[in-house]
């Protein structure tokens, strides 16, 4: 089983935890531009465990984003397998991938990616909407999440009425709506000033302490220093995968 092999290769298991949430096994990704084939990922294998606080770093073009898209079930690997919660995602149909994205994954983007026509509450409850929860439940859950990220007094504001930091907190609340297996964040502090960035990172630390699994793609060393496992990619390969202290 490729999943087992992947776990063997990977020596970075968090102490005291042994539940895997996801694993990529020998994943490669090739893009075709006309007749030109560009292999972006060359057989990457990684295991992710519950409670991991991971940063993925690397220079531009190293395949970070491609890996993130695969982890986010937005893209499929050309070869290799991606297991999410024990499910072989290569076997899933498009609708099932949508389902998994909404239920098992939480996305946080550099540019927040909130929907401008909707207010804070409606943005937060969107994943619940697509998972078929009732309006009453969704409202309640969304309000609690807004409270948790400190925006209880802003629930009926539109995104453009909020600061960058506040918008990113809405996005985090949205990512938490379905209590996902993994929270994927792509340069979450890239558009923020340092103070708002700090607040967001503090929020990540809190989530980590609460036992969430976070994978952050970043250029920022400051961010990476807070994480407990640092993965470095270079030219589509894992260059370094180390776990920090206890």
């Amino acid at each position, binding site marked *: 089983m490729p*999943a*087992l092999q992947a*776990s063997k290769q990977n020596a970075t298991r968090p102490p005291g935890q*042994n*539940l*895997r*949430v996801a694993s990529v096994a020998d994943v490669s990704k090739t893009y075709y531009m006309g007749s030109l084939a560009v292999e972006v990922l060359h057989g990457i294998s990684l295991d992710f465990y*519950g409670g991991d606080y991971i940063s993925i770093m690397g220079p531009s073009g190293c395949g970070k984003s491609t890996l993130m*898209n695969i982890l*986010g079930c*937005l*893209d499929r690997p050309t070869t290799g397998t991606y*297991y999410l*919660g*024990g*499910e072989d995602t290569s076997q*899933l149909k*498009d*609708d*099932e991938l*949508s*389902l*998994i*994205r*909404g*239920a*098992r994954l939480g*996305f946080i*983007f550099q540019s927040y*990616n*909130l*929907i401008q*026509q*909707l207010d804070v509450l409606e943005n937060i409850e*969107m*994943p619940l*909407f*697509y*998972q*078929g*929860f*009732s*309006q*009453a*439940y969704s409202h309640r859950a969304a309000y609690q999440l807004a409270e948790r990220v400190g925006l209880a007094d802003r629930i009926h504001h539109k995104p453009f009425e909020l600061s960058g930091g506040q918008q990113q907190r809405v996005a985090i609340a*949205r990512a938490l709506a*379905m209590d996902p*297996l993994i929270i994927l964040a792509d340069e979450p502090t890239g558009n923020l000033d340092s103070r708002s960035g700090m607040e967001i990172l503090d929020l990540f630390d809190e989530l980590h302490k609460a036992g969430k699994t976070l994978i952050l793609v970043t250029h920022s060393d400051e961010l990476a220093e807070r994480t407990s496992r640092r993965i470095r990619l270079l030219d589509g390969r894992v260059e370094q995968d180390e776990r920090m202290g206890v």
Partner: protein
Amino acid sequence: MNEWVFDSLPPAPESRQGERQSRFGWRVSQITRLGVKSIFSHGLRSMLTVLGIVIGVAAVIAMLAVSEGASFEAQQQFRDLGANNILVKSVKPAEVEETSRLGFGPPQAIVYGLTHADIQTIRDTIPGVSNVVSSRIVKKNVWNLGHSMNADVVGTAVDYPVSRNYDLRDGRFFSDSEMRDHDNVVVLSQEAADVLFPIENPLGQSVRIDSDYYDVVGIMESEGFSNLGQNQAGASNSAPARVFIPLTSSRSRFGETTTRQTAGGVESETVELHEAVIQVEDQESVIAIGEVIDQILQRRHRDVDYTIEIPLALLRQAEESALRDQIVAGAIAGISLLVGGIGIMNIMLASVTERTREIGIRRALGARKADIVTQFLVEAVILSAVGGLIGVVLGITIPFFISTFWGMTTIVTPVAPILAFSISAMIGVIFGIYPSMRAADMDPVEALRHE
């Protein structure tokens, strides 16, 4: 050591049990609200798009109402002439007119038109003819003391009102005995009565025609449509009103030759009968009998000095041309609806491109392709349904205004608004499908990267 946190897919959205409110209700209201929001966020653009549908729907309804009204009016006119009737009229033949103009010497009376013998032959030889009402029409001045008017004095039979669907308003038509006795009695049309007796009741009074006095025994209702046949025969010289006297009286008082002052001198003509209404028992045979009458008259007349009018045939023609009008109107309106639909497609495509990123976000957050299709389709349908609704309101009010300000008959049948509205809703679906599919088929990664 390698257990997974989860072993199976999350439950499908459809399987979740809603608390209190059903998921479907939320979904519809949410998607509709979203559609309305995005429509309002592009107010002007949406308004222009909707306008296309509004015009289309309003045009369909208004055009159908106008053509329906016109055809109703036309049919009503012919129906008033009687669907069982055949009208035969005398017409001055063209050649005779020529020769008389060129000729020198004393004026000669031109003899033409229907004769009593013609009518007798028709009555006797054609089966299925129930009655023939023949008339002589002489133009005379009719006097009541100081009031006078030029009128067509129609010498006719007692059945005239019945044959023309033309009712008495007051008094009675003249009787068989008055007919037999060549009595001086007259029935005025409403128009004539108004002019000659502006104040007093004309019944029991008398009017003077030439040197004779006639007792007024009845007044016909307003001539209205039933004058149409008259107008068609000789529109230029028909008098504004008609008065009716017994045919026998007309012959004995006025004779059969009339003399008229014209530009070229004096012109006189001898016409026995000016028109005859031939009533047929069975409506089915009206057209066939019309042909037989034509054959009989052809044999009996050297020149074609008569015309045969069959209201039923005219009615059929009117119905046919009304149908043609409706098809043309419908086609034009249909084209404008189609253009409206293309407008919707255009704006939806623009909207999809503009909201590529939103589509990407929604897909990342768990929206399935079907969810995206629904969202955009609902938006297209809202646009076209709102347009359709406004169009229906306009389409019903426009004919109303046409009726009030131009006096045209318009008829809004319930079918037209329903048809137009459902077509507009359908257009929303048809022209919304392609943009929606395009939205749903976008690659989420590409969509998220879109600026």
